[in-house]
């Protein structure tokens, strides 16, 4: 079949001659051609979607398969595959004492960051939705942590928190919040808490802009009607605005859960030099297995668990947000 024939077969189906009789005609064509056309249609689509399929299968889905396979292998420190070990890597993983703490910390990490980020963004979006001179400048400033590298944003906080030379320490001393500079990044708990703060900060732009998109769908006349009826601000917000934001909020919450769960650089920089595993999450632990301990097999086992968690979140997203509905 020549490319020209393919062009023909594609164009046969969607070309209606007019608004009124367009649909029935397409139906007739489809019925006549039946299975043959379906296959032809698929082949005509391949040059257009094929490259995308190759990339998705080759670099996203296939590595997942490789990872699952590796999680059942014994791989030496230098990377040589020494054969199958069944579920031994998973057993090693579950026998690893700090794993429980790591799991709990992962939940705290995701829950704290997403909750604080979403609540703060609700307030921020509400504010940025009001008109005032200079609002555009403020909105632009809010974008900065979204575009800027998370590594670089984290580095400036890390420097600020350094024991003697840090500028955040100096500021906290200057406003009398602390008596003397403190080595925040030397202690697992304080480093973890500051990391939560950074993660919230870098999550604010996306969350705020998603909620702003939701706020744009709140009908002004309904708000006006509520005002006329004497509804207070809080009542208007809870009864009218929040329900309208449900779609935007589910997008914001679920995407944030995935992003925060996947987040590596903040904790890696802030807590990476602290000995032990008292500030680790699943993601930083995976990279400790890969980089510090060179146990790619155990790293794969933990990655598989993390991957399953991500898949569950994605499934909830697809079910709740229904992104396929529009197609």
């Amino acid at each position, binding site marked *: 079949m020549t490319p020209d024939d393919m062009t023909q077969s594609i164009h046969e189906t969607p070309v209606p001659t007019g608004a009124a009789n367009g649909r029935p005609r397409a139906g007739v064509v489809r019925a006549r051609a039946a299975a043959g056309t379906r296959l032809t249609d698929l082949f005509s689509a391949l040059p257009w979607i094929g490259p995308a399929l190759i990339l998705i299968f080759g670099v996203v889905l296939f590595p997942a398969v490789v990872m699952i396979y590796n999680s059942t292998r014994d791989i030496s420190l230098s990377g040589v595959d020494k054969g199958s070990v069944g579920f031994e890597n998973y057993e090693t993983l579950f026998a690893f004492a700090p794993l429980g703490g790591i799991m709990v910390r992962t939940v705290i990490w995701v829950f704290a960051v997403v909750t604080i980020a979403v609540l703060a963004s609700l307030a921020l979006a509400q504010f940025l939705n009001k008109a005032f001179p200079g609002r555009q400048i403020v909105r632009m400033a809010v974008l900065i942590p979204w575009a*800027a590298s998370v590594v670089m944003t984290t580095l400036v906080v890390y420097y600020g928190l350094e024991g003697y030379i840090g500028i955040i320490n100096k500021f906290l001393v200057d406003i009398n919040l602390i008596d003397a500079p403190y080595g925040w990044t030397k202690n697992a708990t304080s480093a973890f808490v500051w990391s939560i703060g950074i993660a919230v900060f870098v999550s604010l732009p996306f969350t705020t802009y998603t909620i702003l998109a939701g706020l744009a769908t709140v009908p002004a006349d309904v708000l006006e009607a509520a005002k006329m009826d004497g509804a207070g601000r809080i009542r208007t917000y809870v009864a009218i605005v929040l329900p309208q934001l449900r779609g935007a909020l589910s997008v914001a919450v679920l995407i944030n859960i995935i992003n925060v769960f996947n987040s590596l650089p903040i904790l890696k920089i802030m807590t990476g030099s602290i000995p032990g595993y008292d500030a680790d999450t699943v993601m930083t632990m995976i990279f400790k297995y890969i980089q510090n301990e060179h146990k790619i097999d155990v790293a794969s086992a933990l990655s598989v668990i993390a991957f399953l968690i991500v898949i569950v979140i994605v499934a909830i997203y697809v079910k709740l947000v229904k992104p396929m509905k529009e197609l």
Partner: protein
Amino acid sequence: MTVIAQAPNGARRRRFTADQVPLRTMLLRMLAGAVVLAIFVIPYLIMFFGSVKSKSEIRSVNPTYFPTAWRWENYLTMWSTPETPLVQNLVSTIIIAVFATLLVLLVALPAAYYTARFHFPGRMVFMFLVIVTQMLQPAVLTSGLFRQFSFFGISDTWLAMILINAAFNLSFAVWIMHSFFAGVPKEIDEAAQIDGAGRLAVLFRINLPLVWPGIVTAIVFTFVACWNEFAASLVIMSTAGNQPLAVALTKFVGQYETSWHYVFGVSVVAIIPVVVLFMLIEKRLIGGLTAGSVK
């Protein structure tokens, strides 16, 4: 300059505030705006001020808020610091981000156009794949990626990171451009076809000018994501010179005497272009970004 334009209630809201909001409320809002502005700008101001301090000043046990002497020459001297070959890191970052973005465009544009225009068997399966992979990130798959690319002998190469960045940003680009293509009435295509235009001519001459904002949004998003990618590069790029800036800068942490002024100088250079790009598409972020997902 206002973004209110896209909101159906925009005009009304603007009138409200201009006429009915008391001056005091307006001043309070401006004050709150200034506070928000400060919160978001200050970390990057610290970065900038730090980048023009001397090493002895930025490492002083009596830290200064503002540089006492402005050492602009840091922006020249920082490139030859011993911690990491920064020039190569910058080149790596640029090459990976540029080629990954080009690859995404080359692969995503036809897919977005075709899925928005034609119904074919498997179209829903394809779009489902796009949605699922859109939510996957390299971090969780790094161990698999590392083994796979090592097996093919392209670990620690630009090609590996171009492929990874392209693959993980492809879906978002398809998704956003799909929604823009879907917004162009089919009748326009059909009219052009009746006039004898071929498929590619319809795509390039008729559709592209109409969906240009969607393409720009996809390009900017992809470029910024590739520019900042960290997790996969950390493991895949083992040679110092191959590493992108995001990975290279972490090497300064834990040094005996970290040259923070250089870290910040490089950060400023790396952050400004992507922030400017993002600001260019600010309007799209409210309207178009979540098109199809926010209802």
